[in-house]
């Protein structure tokens, strides 16, 4: 059955516009953003909105396309692939194009939508900032980069988007570069990610040369094309070493980008950027780029790392380590954004774990849901610091009891927290539970229990953060008192850039009249609307793939997950090198075939494009187990927090005023006091402080130190080489050999001595050597 009979539609055909429009928008902002009334932000908003509209259209049409296929034949839904020859060199084509399938559509929608909300949020949050325009330019370019990568039809395009994001993260994290800490954080982030990029370059090369010939022979495609690589990986005649090294190298890139252990240290520091940046880049889009890379080239990793049932592999191990380590770290943070940052890392660990254990769909699903609630949480944090704690992010110093002052923020925060923790029926429940269930179902029992542990910890630290921020008694700025020493307090999380670090900064004035003297209050609509919208989505997004409710609710499974079908290679091939925008029709869906993909080589004349991943059936028992664990985490942590933090206050206020009136309850309270002891001294001292603290120590003292020392030692090595070898040895040899008067001479006299004679020496010496060479040649 032919390719062209499948309905495609304008939006699918022109999905590349989604990435192009923001890029143009970026250029426009740079060009004349400053002159516009809204300082260029309107361009950013407009372009992102346009992208969103097209993405929605594309999504709708993709659904139609899938439906059509399902009605006609339970077959493979061919992605809409288009390619433009960008440039060619030595027979190698470097193309730009689009590769639209369910995964791409889902992420396009997600990225465009979240970018839009974040930009709206930034309108208010950065009002009056001295580099307002630049900020929006960078934000728009970032979205463009991410979209380019999501659309990518070939590896080069993926690299393009990947690096664009890196650049933008550098610009955005270092947005307030007057503060040395910020610029250092920006440098660190870019550099750490760049380390991973070595893997990307090398992996691309390996895979390209591994797949190119095969792709040319069988598909009339080339070794960069994602589709060709997938087919090659599953074709069975790919060299195992190329598969192995290629996938390992690419996974290193993913580690760097997605903040996986051990390269995750840059992510918390990246919180130095403005909060919208944190919420967009470092929670919901950029950091999932690595996960997306793995998901996009899943066949490659499937074969290369042999992600079969039960097979322990690199991705799974890294994922689970990240998950636990990061969660532990989150306990000891006082900076609300850092809690969220570590939680992000931990959730990314979940996704990687899912991908590593064959749970492709749940992982992608988790990307989807996580984006909503994590973005919402970050924006809440931003809202708190913006109007609640006077630009501080320190929960212990400047927060507490804000629930009364900022009800909406608090409410949305709590809902999102529950979603993140995974409370039924909020989105987190479904996605996380599916990952865990599939991990178990695919035979990774140990990993499954570790994942449960992670869920417990997630619930616990989020509860702690919630309590510290919104409950208890107000402290510091939350209590309305003005203090400025919080600059020094927290090097990274502190983006109190505007108010007195730079008196000339318009931001300061903006806030001076904004909420200069009076204390915390609820934020404005521009900030609240995005938060509310996100929270709403965070609570319902789970139903897009709610396995418990049966087939009808497994929307993502039907529309997003590629079908593991064997696909016939059409005889009438269209060449991929065709004219502009020619769509590639080299593959034809055919009737249902046995799902051997990923386990056996496809028969002659056909290819596989996706391995047959298994899906765990939902078991309520497991569901309730998960719920129980999460609940336990929430409750225990909550009680502990109350005990811990309010006890301190009680010390200040004194016991008797509060308890003397109720004599008969004294004992009970006294016991409660024991409970305090129990909670604090036993449970938490045991769990939180030694373990988590040691993990944090490991993080700061070892990993971080390694990164730093790596940098410094290279520099020292550089200095050493420069001083001793370059200047002394090589140079010295030259000097000594009389070509130049030795620079490290005694006085001027011997240094400069007798240039004429040395010309002579040079002349005759060269002549002699030349003669020798000539003689030797002629002999």
């Amino acid at each position, binding site marked *: 059955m032919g390719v062209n009979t499948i309905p495609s539609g304008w939006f699918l055909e022109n999905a590349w516009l989604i990435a192009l429009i923001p890029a143009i928008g970026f250029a426009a902002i740079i060009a004349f953003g400053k002159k516009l009334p809204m300082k260029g932000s309107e361009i950013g908003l407009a372009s992102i909105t346009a992208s969103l509209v097209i993405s929605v259209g594309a999504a709708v049409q993709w659904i139609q396309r899938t439906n059509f296929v399902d009605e006609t034949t339970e077959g493979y839904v061919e992605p809409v692939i288009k390619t433009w020859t960008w440039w060619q060199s030595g027979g190698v084509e470097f193309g730009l194009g689009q590769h639209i399938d369910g995964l791409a559509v889902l992420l396009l929608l997600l990225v465009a939508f979240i970018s839009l909300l974040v930009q709206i949020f930034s309108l208010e949050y950065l009002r009056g900032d001295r580099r307002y325009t630049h900020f929006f330019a960078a934000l728009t370019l970032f979205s463009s980069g991410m979209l380019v990568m999501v659309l990518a039809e070939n590896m080069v395009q993926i690299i393009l988007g990947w690096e664009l994001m890196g650049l933008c993260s550098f610009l955005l994290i270092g947005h307030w570069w007057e503060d040395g800490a910020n610029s250092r954080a920006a440098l660190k982030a870019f550099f750490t990610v760049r380390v991973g990029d070595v893997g990307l370059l090398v992996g691309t090369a390996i895979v390209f040369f591994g797949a190119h010939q095969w792709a040319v022979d069988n598909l009339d495609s080339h070794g960069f094309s994602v589709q060709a690589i997938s087919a090659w990986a599953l074709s069975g005649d790919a060299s195992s070493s190329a598969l192995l090294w290629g996938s390992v190298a690419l996974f290193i890139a993913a580690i760097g980008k997605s903040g996986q252990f051990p390269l995750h240290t840059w992510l918390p520091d990246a919180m130095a950027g403005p909060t919208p940046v944190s919420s967009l880049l470092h929670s919901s889009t950029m950091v999932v780029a690595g996960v997306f890379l793995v998901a996009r080239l899943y066949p490659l990793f499937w074969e290369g790392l042999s992600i079969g049932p039960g097979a322990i592999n690199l991705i799974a191990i890294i994922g689970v380590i990240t998950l636990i380590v990061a969660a532990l770290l989150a306990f000891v943070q006082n900076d609300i954004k850092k809690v969220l940052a570590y939680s992000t890392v931990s959730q990314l660990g979940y996704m990687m774990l899912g991908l590593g254990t064959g749970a492709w769909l749940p992982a992608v699903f988790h990307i989807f849901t996580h984006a909503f609630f994590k973005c919402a949480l970050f924006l809440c944090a931003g809202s708190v610091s913006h109007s609640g704690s006077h630009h501080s992010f320190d929960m212990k110093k400047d927060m507490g009891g804000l629930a009364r002052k900022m009800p909406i923020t608090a409410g949305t925060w709590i809902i999102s927290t529950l979603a993140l923790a995974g409370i039924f029926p909020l989105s987190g429940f479904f996605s996380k539970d599916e990952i865990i269930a599939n991990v178990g179902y695919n035979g990774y029992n140990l990993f499954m229990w570790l994942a449960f542990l992670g869920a417990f910890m997630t619930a616990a630290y989020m509860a702690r953060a919630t309590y510290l921020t919104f409950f208890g008694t107000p402290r510091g700025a939350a209590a309305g008192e003005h203090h400025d020493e919080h600059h020094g307090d927290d090097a990274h999380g502190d983006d109190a850039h505007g108010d007195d670090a730079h008196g000339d900064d318009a931001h300061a004035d903006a806030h001076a009249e904004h909420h200069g003297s009076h204390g915390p209050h609820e934020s404005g609509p521009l900030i609240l609307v995005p938060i509310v919208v996100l929270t709403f989505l965070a609570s319902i997004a789970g139903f897009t793939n709610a396995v418990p409710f049966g087939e009808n609710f497994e929307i993502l499974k039907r529309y997003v997950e590629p079908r593991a079908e064997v696909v016939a290679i059409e005889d009438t091939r269209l060449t991929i090198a065709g004219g502009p925008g020619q769509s590639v029709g080299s593959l034809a869906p055919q009737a249902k075939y046995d799902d051997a993909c990923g386990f056996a080589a496809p028969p002659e004349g056909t290819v596989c494009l996706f391995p047959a991943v298994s899906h765990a059936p939902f078991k309520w028992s497991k569901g309730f187990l998960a719920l129980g664990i999460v609940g336990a985490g929430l409750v225990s942590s909550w009680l502990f927090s109350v005990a811990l933090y309010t006890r301190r206050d009680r010390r200040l206020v004194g016991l008797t005023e509060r308890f003397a009136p109720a004599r008969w309850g004294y004992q009970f309270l006294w016991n409660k006091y024991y409970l305090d002891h129990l909670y604090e001294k036993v449970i938490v001292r045991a769990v939180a402080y030694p373990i988590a603290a040691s993990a944090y120590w490991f993080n700061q003292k070892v990993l971080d130190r390694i990164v730093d020392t790596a940098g410094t030692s290279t520099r020292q090595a550089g200095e050493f080489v420069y001083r001793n070898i370059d200047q002394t040895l090589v140079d010295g040899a030259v000097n000594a050999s009389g070509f130049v008067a030795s620079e490290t001479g005694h006085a001027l*006299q011997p240094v*400069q*001595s*007798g*240039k*004429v*004679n*040395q010309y*002579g*020496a040079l002349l*005759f010496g060269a002549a002699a050597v030349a003669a020798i060479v000539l003689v030797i040649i002629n002999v």
Partner: protein
Amino acid sequence: MLAVNFLILAAVLFSIGVFGVIARRNAVMVLMSVELVLNSVMLNLVAFSQITDSIDGQLFALFVIAIAAAEVGVGLAMVLMVYRNRRSIALDELSEMKG
């Protein structure tokens, strides 16, 4: 007699001259060393004119003699001028004048 005798003698003289040019500090001495080199060349020319039965070699030797005379004249004149300007003809001190 063997042609090599002349040629090797010339080579030796040449090398000595080279050494002088490189090693000497006094401009006049350098000029003398150059003379050594020139003479060795002329010796070669004459020897070749004997080997290949033609007088061209000798003619060139004569040319070289003339050139050498000219060269010494000009060279010494320059040395003189330099000496006049800066009371010294040490080449290394000369080399600081450039730039």
